[in-house]
């Protein structure tokens, strides 16, 4: 075995990152659906010859990508020029967790020897199913969520099975987009494959193979060491609750337990989580996900490391209960699993907060998506608008305002109005939605749409309304989101935060307010100047400044005497906060 020296290892890491950047550039420039090209919902990864993810994206949602393909097409039978494809959630045990995400995977060969795999992954805007966009809070069965592609071989020896593609495109309400996106993803994977071969040429396949092995083992070692420094021997528990599944199963509680044994094994146990839901908030969680999620958290201080399959290896055992919200039985619907995923990520920080007495980020809101579908000027349209939320405050900084997720961008107002039959009346930060704290939680947003189409059906997806994102270490919870129809008029009504089928007509105004992030540290410790800047900037109201931060502002300037008096009456705080200080959230 040829060993890869530390310098070459860093070079290979850089070359792999560059290959990813190239694939991403190609995808962004050639894809057609706004979901991919404007919102940028796509990811890439490189794998070793056995299919372990060696260089991934900084996204904690990937499971074992290659395994499901290998079950149907043994790795040893793969050829150069092959390309594999799937979106089968249950068939991949959650490697893909909703059907809109398409995985394209190609093996790469160097002089006849398999050296690794390349993945391109992207969210396709419509793959058939119950409603345009394929994801609906109304779904009760996974088969309503679009066509399911089991692991299939799309290309053999460089020959494309076009019948398969035609079948897939025929199942989309927007076949041109589907076609453009497929071609873009295929081209990106081919490019990545060439780069992996270039790397084998340059460093030698043995060195490359050892480099991948080292990248995996060093990530595992780093994650394990960090987990040891965070978690004491014993079991750390944290639980949190999802508002609803939109179909009457509520509340739904995630119960996590992380055990460090005396011999330093880590066991992640989510078996006490509530039963699966009737509605599509089930998260078919691949057992690799807890390791990826904790890995992303602990690697934030190690920018030289990559998030890969080494993260999951740092967790020795993952226990899930079949039939629970995190391990649903087929064909439970899965489309809105993102909401449960976002809650789960915050709950991981909850485990850290418990273990470290609050030295962890506060909770964030789950990203919000609204889908507006109808017909305008004789053409069918689908607007899936991903809307940012506030992220949790941290022990070192405020939470981030108005973020959707890593690398995913919003639709500009001008783009929206040029492309869809809507007019935006407002797009701004949601006042007082950031949880008060020494570090403030990020603010959510307000986005107000006026419908210009004669008729359109809207789906709403907002979580963390009844159970707003918790604050920590004295920080208070973040604000909740909501959807209001025709605000400030006699026709005003609140729409259910998880709902579909509401019909809107021309002139209707839909106002979406999204939730913020929890605060960190006691709000009375936030410097007066920071509170003042927040008030002047439209993040925090005068009332909240006085009530939550103890800062009294009159005519735009702080009243020092009143502030000192108010801050002298400092309320006692607790570890967590949701509506009141408490030792546990749920």
């Amino acid at each position, binding site marked *: 075995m040829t060993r890869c020296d530390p*310098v070459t290892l860093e070079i290979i890491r850089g070359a792999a990152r560059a290959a990813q950047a190239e694939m991403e550039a190609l995808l962004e420039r050639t894809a057609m659906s706004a979901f991919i090209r404007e919102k940028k919902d796509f990811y890439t990864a490189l794998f070793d010859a056995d299919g372990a993810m060696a260089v991934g*994206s900084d996204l904690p949602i990937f499971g074992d990508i290659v395994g499901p393909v290998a079950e149907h097409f043994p790795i040893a039978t793969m050829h150069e020029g092959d390309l594999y494809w799937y979106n089968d959630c249950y068939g991949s045990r959650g490697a893909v967790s909703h059907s809109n995400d398409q995985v394209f995977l190609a093996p790469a060969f160097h002089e006849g020897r398999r050296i690794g795999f390349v993945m391109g992954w992207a969210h396709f805007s419509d793959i058939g199913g119950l409603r345009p966009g394929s994801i609906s809070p109304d779904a009760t069965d996974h088969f309503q969520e679009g066509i399911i592609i089991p692991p299939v071989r799309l290309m053999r020896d460089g020959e494309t099975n076009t019948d398969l593609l035609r079948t897939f495109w025929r199942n989309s309400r927007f076949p*041109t987009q589907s076609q453009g996106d497929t071609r873009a993803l295929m081209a990106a994977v081919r490019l990545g494959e060439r780069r992996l071969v270039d790397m084998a040429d340059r460093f030698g396949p043995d060195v490359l193979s050892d480099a991948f092995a080292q990248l995996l083992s060093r990530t595992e070692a780093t994650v394990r060491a960090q987990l040891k420094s965070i978690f004491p021997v014993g079991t750390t528990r944290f639980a949190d609750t999802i508002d609803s599944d939109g179909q009457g199963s509520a509340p739904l509680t995630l119960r996590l337990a992380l055990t460090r044994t005396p011999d330093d094994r880590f066991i992640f146990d989510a078996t006490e989580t509530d039963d699966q839901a009737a509605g599509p908030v089930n998260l078919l969680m691949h057992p690799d996900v807890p390791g990826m999620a904790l890995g992303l958290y602990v690697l934030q201080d190690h920018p030289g490391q990559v998030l890969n399959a080494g993260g999951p290896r740092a967790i020795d055992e993952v226990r899930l209960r079949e039939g629970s919200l995190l391990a649903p039985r087929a064909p439970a619907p899965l489309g809105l699993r993102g909401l449960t995923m976002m809650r789960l990520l915050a709950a991981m920080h909850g485990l850290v907060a418990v273990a470290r007495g609050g030295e962890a980020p506060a909770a964030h809101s789950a990203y919000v998506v609204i889908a507006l579908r109808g017909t305008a000027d004789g053409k069918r349209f689908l607007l899936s608008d991903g809307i940012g939320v506030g992220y949790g405050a941290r022990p070192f900084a405020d939470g981030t305002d*108005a973020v959707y997720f890593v690398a995913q961008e919003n639709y500009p107002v001008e783009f929206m109005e040029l492309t869809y039959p809507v007019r935006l009346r*407002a797009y701004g930060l949601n006042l007082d939605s950031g949880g008060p704290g020494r570090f403030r939680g990020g603010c959510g947003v307000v986005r107000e749409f006026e419908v210009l189409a004669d008729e359109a059906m809207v789906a709403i997806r907002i979580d963390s309304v009844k159970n707003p994102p918790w604050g920590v270490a004295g920080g208070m919870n973040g604000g909740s989101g909501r959807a209001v129809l025709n605000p400030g008029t006699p026709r005003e009504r609140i729409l259910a935060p998880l709902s579909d089928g509401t019909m809107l007509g021309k002139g209707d105004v839909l106002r979406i307010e999204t939730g913020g992030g929890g605060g960190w540290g006691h709000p009375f410790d936030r410097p007066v100047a920071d509170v003042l800047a927040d008030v002047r900037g439209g993040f925090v109201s005068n009332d909240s400044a006085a009530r939550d931060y103890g800062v009294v502002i009159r005519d735009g300037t702080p009243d020092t005497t009143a502030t000192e008096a108010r801050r002298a009456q400092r309320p006692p705080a607790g570890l967590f906060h949701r509506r009141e200080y408490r030792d546990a959230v749920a």
Partner: protein
Amino acid sequence: MPSPDAAPLIVAVDIGGTFTDVTLQDTATGEAWTAKTPSTPRDPSEAFITGVHLALAAAGRQPQAIGRVLHGTTVATNLILEGKTAPTALLTTAGFRHVLEIGRADLPRRDNLWAWVKPRRPVPPALVFEAAGRIASDGSELAPLDEAAVRDAARAARAAGVSAIAVCLLHAFANPSHERRALAILAEEAPGLALTASVDVFPVVREYERSMATVLNAAVMPAISTYIARLEARLTEAGIAAPLLLMKSNGGVAGARAIRRAPAQTALSGPAAGVVGARAVAASAGVADIITVDIGGTSADICLIAKGEIGLTQTGRVGPWPLSLPMVDMVTIGAGGGSLARVGSDGVLTVGPQSAGADPGPASYGRGGLEPTVTDAHVVLGHLPPALLGGRMALDRALAEAAVQRVAEPLGLEIAEAARGILAIADNTMVGAIRVVSVERGHDPREFVLVPFGGAGPLHGCAIAELLGITRVLVPPAPGVLCAQGLLAADLKAEFARSVAEPLDRADLLRLEDVFASLEKEAATWFAQEGVTATDQRMRRVALMRYEEQGHELPIAWQPGDEPARLGAAFAAAHRALYGFDLPEVAVEVVTLRVEAAGLLPAPARREPFGGDAAQAAIGRQRILLRSGAVEATVIDRGRLGIGATFAGPAIVTQLDATTLVGPGWTATVDPSGALMLARG
């Protein structure tokens, strides 16, 4: 413009962090003189004029003989990067006050979600004011502008003590009337403040990016205005009546008046000048396809030029901010001579993006730096002469070794191995960026000639070329001061664009023709303002096209009387060449029409070169540490190398402004243009 006979001299001034470089050239004979003087950061115009006087003295000429003054400036860039722009307010459409705070609601793909901290915006939200009134996406007026709100905003902004106000209203690119009216009101209510509207900066769709460009433009206006006024006063004082032309990010120059109005156009002034210089050097050596690598102290700029055409992008960035103005399409990465090499607690060796900067600089400079830099790695391996800048700056090898030892030890490597590792990592970062630039433009780098420049570029040229499979490297005659060369070679340039959004197969060709005609009228006005005579005017029509529903356009040249069928075929061919596939069943859309205008400036005659072979230029030998062992390399004085001189690597070529490392296996030949062509194999 004065006629060339009366005022045959052109002068180019490039102000760097440490030195100000001035090149004076006689356009009739091609003879050139250079001067170097310490920069004067407090008032850069001081060094500017000192340098001009020094160059005139060296040439023995009078100021009146100067017919053109060219200048590349980093004033705007530095203000933006250092967050030192003027206090600025933004006027936006009611309901959109947080346009800058929200941005695109993302965080960078390579950043950790939990660690990333949002950078502070150039305008705080307290200084963003709203005015009601609405233009629709088709340009129609939905609601009139609330003029009282504009007046209130002006008063509030003045009370808050701002020096500039930016105006960016929704859909102003489709109908500028509200922005124009708002600007007029602001001029009444806030006289003396710098004012700028988005339609005058760059009228393109996407409100966050356009607002940011407008805000940055406004925020650098006061300083640029003062700066230009000072330069002009200095020139007048010195008896120089020639027009002052400034380099823009698009690789062309423009008159001072235009730059005062849109100073954000100079954000990439310096790097763009370098790219233009590299193209000029390559063109005189008969090379049209090049990849340029400009390596400075803290960063490297990489640009690909195919068939002599410098590509433009509208998705460039300055620091964390998008800047949607036409700029030379290049990428900047955090790897340069001063980049620090470090070993993390988990045993990972990284190089950059942290840099030793100008102070303390690399350890070998002996100014107190202890951490190893890329330059120190070169010193350890014997790639650099014992002193730089013509002997004025000694390099301390022992200090370099001590610094590199700091990373060698934890890695268990020999010092030379560690030094080679540092260089390999830096080279690899640059190679990665070159590959991304190549795929984005659809080219195979092996078909290109690498042109390394900047103080540190020619040290890395051979190594980067080997990694990319490139077999020819062209080192410019003065690689360290190529920006001045670029200024001398630049033409006046401006782009005029309008969004049209027409399906190609059903395009209203008469309407498109009208749009082109009106853009050309705008270009004609610009030519008149810049005083470009008819014979020097060049115009080019370009249509930006894409497949329906794609998000990125490709520029396709539009010939007079062009037919949709030919344009469609040209687009499909370009798409295939770039991305490897086309989509015959999918409709093509014309998104934007653009007129690219250039005013040609007379190029200087080429100076007759002189002779002198390699043996005469050899001034010594130096030990360098290759992976295979130590070898003696010839040290060659670039100034003594004549045309046609040829020698084999390993060799070290020294000159005032840069050092070239000719690797083993490479042969160097002085091209008739004076550039050094390195070839492998």
